[in-house]
């Protein structure tokens, strides 16, 4: 059972774990821009870079396992584009007005590739960053601590929901709810599964508000910090480099110097 306290964090002592959360956040932003603005061949470089980073940080196994979750999404992006790409030139297998086309396959592969790369980068960020370090890092940069806490809660929301969803699935199946089988059966199972998640989350929010109030969260305009988040010179240089790289991506993407 994974604990909820640390969200997706996988403890470690690698170079990636040691980076300041803001450096990693900036890196994530750069990967996002590069994946969508640069020509498709750049995706190969980004993917290789991310996989090597994960390998050197001892997170490759976790990263590969995490790909199981969105695998269906990637596959559907690929298939939908391959068959339904509008204005496709030559259709390999025409099916009425649509059909399998080279243009569609290419577009599907590129779209799925972009999302895979961004997904890998985001997961790597979550795996190597303790949510609390992110919070303190943001507050240290002048972000309002309430806003920072909202961001932190968002990062932790998914693992919390996963735990709850598993419990709800158990409880409804135990009342005879069938969740496998025909499409009709599956659709009918949605309300009994999603209903308690939504209603339970509302109760959860109320109780979490109580918990924060009881601990005087937000009582004073300023707060002190127990954790000190390391920000070595390497990180400052890295962030300067990343800012430059972000500008470079924009310049390269919109100047037309790169071959498409």
């Amino acid at each position, binding site marked *: *059972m994974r*604990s*909820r*306290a*640390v969200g997706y964090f996988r403890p470690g002592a690698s170079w990636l774990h040691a980076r300041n959360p803001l450096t990693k956040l900036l890196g994530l932003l750069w990967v996002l821009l590069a994946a969508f603005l640069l020509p498709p061949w750049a995706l190969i470089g980004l993917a290789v870079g991310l996989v090597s980073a994960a390998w050197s940080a001892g997170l490759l196994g976790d990263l590969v396992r995490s790909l199981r979750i969105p695998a269906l999404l990637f596959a559907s992006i690929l298939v939908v584009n391959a068959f339904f790409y509008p204005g496709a030139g030559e259709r390999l297998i025409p099916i009425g007005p649509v059909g399998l086309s080279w243009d569609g396959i290419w577009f599907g592969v590129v779209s799925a590739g972009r999302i895979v790369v961004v997904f890998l980068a985001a997961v790597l960020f979550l795996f190597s960053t*303790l*949510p*609390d370090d992110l*919070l303190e890092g943001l507050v240290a940069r002048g972000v309002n601590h309430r806003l920072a806490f909202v961001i*932190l809660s968002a990062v*932790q929301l998914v693992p919390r929901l996963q735990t*709850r969803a598993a*419990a*709800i699935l*158990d*409880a*409804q*199946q*135990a*009342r*005879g*709810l*069938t*969740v*496998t089988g025909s499409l009709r059966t599956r659709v009918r199972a949605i*309300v*009994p599964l*999603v*209903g*308690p998640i939504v*209603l*339970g989350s509302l*109760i*959860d929010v109320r*109780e*979490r*508000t*109580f*918990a*924060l*109030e*009881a*601990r*005087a*969260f*937000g*009582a*004073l305009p*300023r*707060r*002190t*910090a*127990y*954790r*000190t988040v390391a920000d070595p010179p390497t990180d400052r240089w890295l962030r300067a480099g990343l800012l430059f790289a972000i500008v470079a991506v924009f310049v390269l993407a919109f100047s037309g110097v790169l071959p498409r």
Partner: protein
Amino acid sequence: MTDAALAIEGLSVRYIGRREPALQDVSLEVAPGEIVGVAGRTGAGKSTLALVGGGFIPRVVRAKVDGRVHIGHVDALAATLPELAGKVGIVFSSPALQLSSSKPTVREELAFGLENLAVPRAEMDARIDSVLARLGIGHLAEREPLALSGGEQQRVAIASILVMGTSLLVLDEPTAQLDPAGTADVAALLGELAADGRAVLVAEHAAEVLRMAGECLVLDAGRVVGVGPPGVALGSSIAGRAGLRPPTLVTLAEAAGLPPAAAFDEERIAAALRRGRPTAPPEPTTTDLSVPTVRRAPVEPIEVRDVVHRYANGVEALRGVSLTVAPGEAVAIVGQNGSGKTTMVKHINGLLRPAAGRVSIGGADIAGRSVDAIAGQVGFVFQNPDDQLFHGRVDAEVGFGPRNLRLPADQVAALVEAALSLAGLVAERQTNPYDLGFSTRKLVALASVLAMEPPILVLDEPTTGQDGPGVERVGSIVDSWQAAGRTVIAITHDMEFAARHFGRVVVMRDGQLVLDGPPGEVFASDQTSLLASTGLVPPPAARIAARLRPFAAPADAAALLRLLAAG
């Protein structure tokens, strides 16, 4: 103005949108070094009083409030968070939810409150260490809060409030979700805090906690119906009139003619009972609840053989468990949190599958059957009702299970009616389950499984959060289910509930069964040390009986008194 840590005078509270007030004309004072207990039925206003005392009403929870409330010298009804921060702390029943749930260690969990009070970093560790040491949990400092046991978490939650310098501690059913060892832990802690000069206001059902109070307030429908030492307030004349069942020890002390001061003194109660010849109470009137008899599915034996279960993290939760349950048996499963009780019962309806061993119902291995296919045979009521409630009306929710069994509409309707009346929810049929309190939502969840008329009923901690009459209701349901020849298996932390309503008690420890027998034998004096090794103690009546003479352990006060009267 007095020196009281909390002073409430003429308090009335009405929630927005409600016609009936939650509290009316309540006055109380809690002085430093004093524990004041609040007892009452579910809905009597205990939580509301705790929320006012903790400075949450009207600041966090909106309500119309009249009267005067002072926390220290601060007018709590007009105060802002900065004025109250660090002066009062409130602890709720669910420890996991009141921890910030983002901190990797207990130390940082405690630091969270200090950060919010802008305590300089250099002072934090000393303050944290001193509170941890005082609460005897220094060894937990570097552990992960959410990985701790319930009792440990509740200690951490209390520590996280105290570290802020709080001199007034308000607790709202702090032991509702704890096992017996955890409850004893919290009760002892409150005593230590009071001895330390803190003021404590605690709303509770558990007699183990209320007995620590110097004074107890009994609420009924929002009004104070009695105040006095626990031995008086919880006795038949005050608590009994407020619809509560007096604690077993208090009942025995009254029967023995002891003064209220001795109401929880087991030695004096035993001595007085030995001397006197108390009159036997009348035989209990059997509450005849009618169970649904629409499906009449056959009741089959359950066999769990050599079952081993490992979680994904490698922890072996069950280490070779074997248990045979004959049709029509009522089995209570007891043991500490983490002893494997829930893991074991989840194998009976296939929610968990054994790593080794087998589970069969009616002689057939259930390995190939899905959970929803077993649901008609094994009804399973979960600990948390909110994991299953999703309908806008109680009756629709209760009908969900029988509809899944694809029964004809008239049968579904008959089952829903029967289940609603069993659970005492007929008047609430049109209510939205989420407008009901937690303990009533638990009864809705129970009814929604009873409506499937399962020949085998499995309950995971059905009495959590129920007041005395609520526990009685669940007990009568168990009795009538079994009287109809059906099987009931329940996990419980309430030993008296186990002894009164179950013919067989199974004790678990570290993923194994360590004791199995009728309650009279399991709770008898010769098993006390084995029980203690599992963090359990026999129910109060059995403890008193053990001091008198070694006969089979009686389940409750009435049973003990009858034994004595018979000589």
